[in-house]
């Protein structure tokens, strides 16, 4: 097992890629075969793509608070007048779709959590379309994302209740950026730089769900987390590096999470949850 990004990169250089390092560790840890591990990941990937398809078709959450935005983005993408790149917006559309399905209590694959499940899945489906990825490459994206996610989970947090939204959307976006670098031919070191660049921009992001629901602002934060993954992957591929090394960024993220007051950690007692509109929504739902 690798405990730090530095160790992960060492293993990746030894085995040839982050993906291969992750698969080797998984085989040892779980005592299962490569075939079983690949089949498990494929099953998870299929659920991701199914949830995107369902969400883009248009869904409404259990409370009626969110839904329909993935379809709006899909229709908008059908025109020619959008400002940012087509595939960034496709990732945005997909990320929204997954989280709208999640809020509908539909079937999703946590990635690393349910509240942030849209980011990596949305980016993966977008880049699949963009680069015509085959299944092997799709799985490479996920094993790489998972490897960096493991280091973040063990050294900081992937729980909004423990570390705020930086732990959820921040981790998800960092994982997706690493996946993008891997399937674009970047080095393990460049994957790590993308992770650091992404996390640095997410430090301090609070978890402030309106009415305690995984809807507002979660759905839109998934969208923007996905767009950020694209940008930081490009920065890393351009050779831009983080002045603060990736492992130190993760340690900082852990500290920030510990120092964050509990009103900003999934208790619905701070931020957007206690705005006049946030409170009104909560009252309407719970009476």
């Amino acid at each position, binding site marked *: 097992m690798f405990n730090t990004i530095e160790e992960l990169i060492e293993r990746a250089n030894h085995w040839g890629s982050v993906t291969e390092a992750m698969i080797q560790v998984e085989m040892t840890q779980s005592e299962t075969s490569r075939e079983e591990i690949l089949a498990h990941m494929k099953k998870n990937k299929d659920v991701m793509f199914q949830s995107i398809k369902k969400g883009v078709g248009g869904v409404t959450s259990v409370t009626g608070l969110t839904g329909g935005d993935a379809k709006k983005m899909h229709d908008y993408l059908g025109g020619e007048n959008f400002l940012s790149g087509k595939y960034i917006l496709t990732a945005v559309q997909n990320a929204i779709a997954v989280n709208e399905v999640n809020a509908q209590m539909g079937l999703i694959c946590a990635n690393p959590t349910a509240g942030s499940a849209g980011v990596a899945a949305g980016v993966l489906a977008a880049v699949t379309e963009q680069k015509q990825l085959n299944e092997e490459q799709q799985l490479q994206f996920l094993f790489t994302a998972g490897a960096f996610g493991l280091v973040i989970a063990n050294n900081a947090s992937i729980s909004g209740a*423990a570390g705020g939204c930086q732990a959820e959307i921040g981790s998800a976006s960092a994982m997706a950026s690493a996946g993008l670098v891997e399937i674009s031919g970047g080095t393990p070191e460049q994957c790590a730089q993308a992770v650091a660049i992404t996390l640095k921009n997410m430090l301090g992001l609070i978890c402030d769900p309106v009415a*305690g629901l995984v809807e507002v602002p979660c759905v839109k934060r998934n969208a923007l987390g996905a767009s950020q993954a694209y940008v930081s992957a490009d920065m890393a591929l351009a050779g831009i590096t983080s002045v603060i090394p990736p492992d130190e960024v993760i340690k900082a993220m852990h500290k920030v999470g510990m120092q964050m007051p509990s009103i900003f950690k999934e208790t619905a007692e701070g931020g957007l949850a206690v705005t006049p509109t946030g409170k009104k929504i909560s009252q309407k739902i719970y009476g």
Partner: protein
Amino acid sequence: MSNNQFKSVFDIIGPVMVGPSSSHTAGAARIGKVVRQIFGEQPETVDILLYESFAKTYRGHGTDIAIVGGLLGMEPDDPRLADSLKIAYENKMEVLFVPKKEAAEHPNQVTLIVKKGERKMRVTGISIGGGNIQISELNGFKIHINMGTPTVLIVHQDVPGVIAEVTDVFRKLNINIATMTDSRAAKGEQAIMILEIDERSTADALEKIKKIANVHNVSFFI
């Protein structure tokens, strides 16, 4: 072995689950299911004490229905989760939710008090993120059970020879014990033995352990 809480790539990419929250829905369902496994049967009544973030946001996240679904044996991806309260009612399992005001050791913590007839068990679980859980207390004993490692949990009377008989079962079946702890309430009182083993299929061993005198309850999970 490292002491990392997260060991598998599927702790991060996964689980496949019904929304909306991995910690508050999927993790909650897993805690319910493990408690059911430890108790060994469907309880008649369950008191569900919710702490901190679980207490404050459980309704919006479906934590309540997820815990009950787990107690009924459902997995986090079971489409019947949404109807678990109704199913519990039909199956005559009575549930009571108590959001607690006091602070807890972990922000996502729940204590389940399960009863059937004369049998009663108190188990605390925590949801540590991404649907991953730990069991931190059983009948007042501080314990530490991580999911993902084959673990045998034995509730027994604190009398001479029980530990030897249990380890003898594993020896005869050539199953290696990786770690082992045993703690007791007081001399001669109830004790809890936790063994992590290097084997995933254990039906044989469990049957034999159940027959050992002064063993009250045996459960196994991975």
